[in-house]
């Protein structure tokens, strides 16, 4: 991932995904499960003062096709909320979201991004991300048949191809998540996202639940897929080493607002915002390594 590529990406005019002043709120007490379709403004606790906590406060963001964008910040900084708003699992309360120049997200609604060839997501906990009672095959086949992405008779074959593309054997089609390792589950989750032929992949802390050697494999897999499929990837992470390894560009979130954004190398070596500096200082080895550059 060189700076030159990233600069080219930046110079490339049409954005694939744009956020214009997007805000999102949780009620004082979070009232429903993820994917709540009620507008945030109506989700106040009945007994409380009705004050709303902003999870995102006017975020502006432009994502270019093919780039790899890192979103960093500590727990509670709004990273995951941003991801959920972008994929359309959580309603925004202000601003708009554009996908390929079309407005897909308006205040009070969840973003209506296309599922096929659109935006897909990979989650943090590989076990929770897969339905425990379904086999890998039925998880993949459901997508292919519901969206008629291939003929019913070819669904099995296509599922096997998808698994092979993430480095898994077709043997596991009949297995359930319980009998797979965390790394394998995460690969299945990636295959599930790839089944849609997405243009943007939101990877929410995809490696933080995996052990170090598997982390590298999964990151490499995403990087490879990015190249072969021309995928745009948004990495949501608290891990600056991950950012350093795979992201062209990075934005730093603090309390739901963007405090800094720019090329990864610039931000990590010359942070201008004190919050970013404190994040980097929290990772001593990485700080040392970067100063050496």
């Amino acid at each position, binding site marked *: 991932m060189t700076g030159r590529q990233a600069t080219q990406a930046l110079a490339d005019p049409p954005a694939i995904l744009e956020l214009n002043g997007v805000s999102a709120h949780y009620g004082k007490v979070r009232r*429903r499960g*993820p994917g709540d379709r009620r507008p945030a403004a109506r989700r106040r606790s009945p007994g409380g003062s009705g004050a709303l906590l902003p999870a995102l406060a006017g975020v502006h963001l432009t994502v270019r096709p093919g780039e790899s964008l890192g979103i960093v910040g500590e727990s509670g900084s709004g990273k995951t909320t941003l991801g*959920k708003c972008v994929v359309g699992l959580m309603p925004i309360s202000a601003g708009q979201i554009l996908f390929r120049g079309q407005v897909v997200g308006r205040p009070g609604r969840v973003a209506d991004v296309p599922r096929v060839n659109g935006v897909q997501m990979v*989650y943090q906990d590989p076990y929770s*991300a897969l*339905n425990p*009672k379904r086999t890998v095959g039925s998880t993949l086949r459901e997508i292919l048949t*519901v969206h008629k992405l291939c003929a019913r008779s070819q669904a099995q074959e296509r599922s096997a191809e998808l698994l092979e593309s993430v480095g898994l054997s077709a043997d596991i089609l009949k297995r359930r998540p319980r009998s797979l390792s965390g790394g394998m589950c995460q690969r299945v989750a990636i295959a599930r996202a790839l089944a849609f032929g997405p243009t943007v992949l939101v990877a929410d802390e995809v490696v933080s639940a995996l052990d170090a050697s598997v982390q590298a494999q999964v990151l490499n897999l995403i990087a490879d897929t990015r190249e072969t499929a021309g995928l745009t990837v948004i990495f949501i992470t608290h891990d600056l080493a991950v950012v350093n390894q795979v992201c062209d560009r990075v934005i730093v979130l603090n309390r739901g607002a963007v405090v800094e954004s720019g090329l990864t190398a610039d931000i990590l070596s010359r942070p201008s915002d004190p919050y970013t500096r404190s994040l980097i200082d929290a990772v001593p080895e990485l700080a040392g390594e970067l100063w050496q550059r």
Partner: protein
Amino acid sequence: MAAVAASGRGSATRRLGTVLRRRVIQVVPTLLGVSLVTFILVRLLPGGPVQTLVGVRATPASIAAVSRQLGLSRPLVSQYFTYLGQLAHGNLGYSFLTGTSVTSIVASHLAVTAELIGLAVVLALIIGIPLATVSAYHRGAWQDQVIRAGTVATLGLPSFWVGILLVTYLGLRLKWFPSGGAGTGVVGTVDHLFLPALTLALTFLAVVVRSLRASISEILRADHVDAARLKGISRFRVFSRHVLRLASLPVVALVGLNMSYLLGTSVIVENVFALPGMGQQLVSSILQRDFLVVQGITLVFGLIVIVISTAVELIQAALDPRSAA
């Protein structure tokens, strides 16, 4: 991989074996206990079968004669062991009053009770699943509060009172349903069983709703439900395929674990609605001091509870290795 699967199956069989062995070892002492307690309790009641048979104005001589004939003049310990001996041969004894075998009495009343409980469970699910779903999707909101308060209130309502209300209003006033007795044929059976089953279902509803609400809201928190939403499938399909199917497993266990409660309440419900099931037979036998019928029915109740809870435990152990430990 084949080897892994094979050893997995082997350990599953072993696990089920452990559960089954433990349960079988428990069965005999449990049934012995049930038989001893009911044996003593029915004899502690004032009066007895002899009184019922000969009437209040019988001479002491005829009372003694009938007692001897029924074997009730022998010492209690000897009576109990004779009873156990019969049980060991699968003989539940004979009714003092009619001479019919207890086994055939149980057999002729079992079906009604089984149908009552079966229909009650179905009704509890038909009413409970939508309520639990609304509650879980609106956690903490007013819908949730109303449903939770409402179901807890049904838990507090005595089933005989609910039964009487239902008979009075839906049965006698509106004449929507028959007010008692059993029907014939499928339609007649369901028609007659509806109000009693609804009464039983209402007392069971709170348990169903609470458990389902908890499991649905836990599943809603899992990422795979978000992933299912991102599949672009309908909300109903997300719910039915990905949420409800997972949430329904604990409910199966719930029905099994509450079987003793359902059987106990069915005794009351059958008497309110004059349903000729085991519960009604039990109460009339107690009133007539027909000792062996009371003991027999109680034993069968005990056996049903043990068999069903064992079955539930086996199913759980097969599905989830941790529960067998």
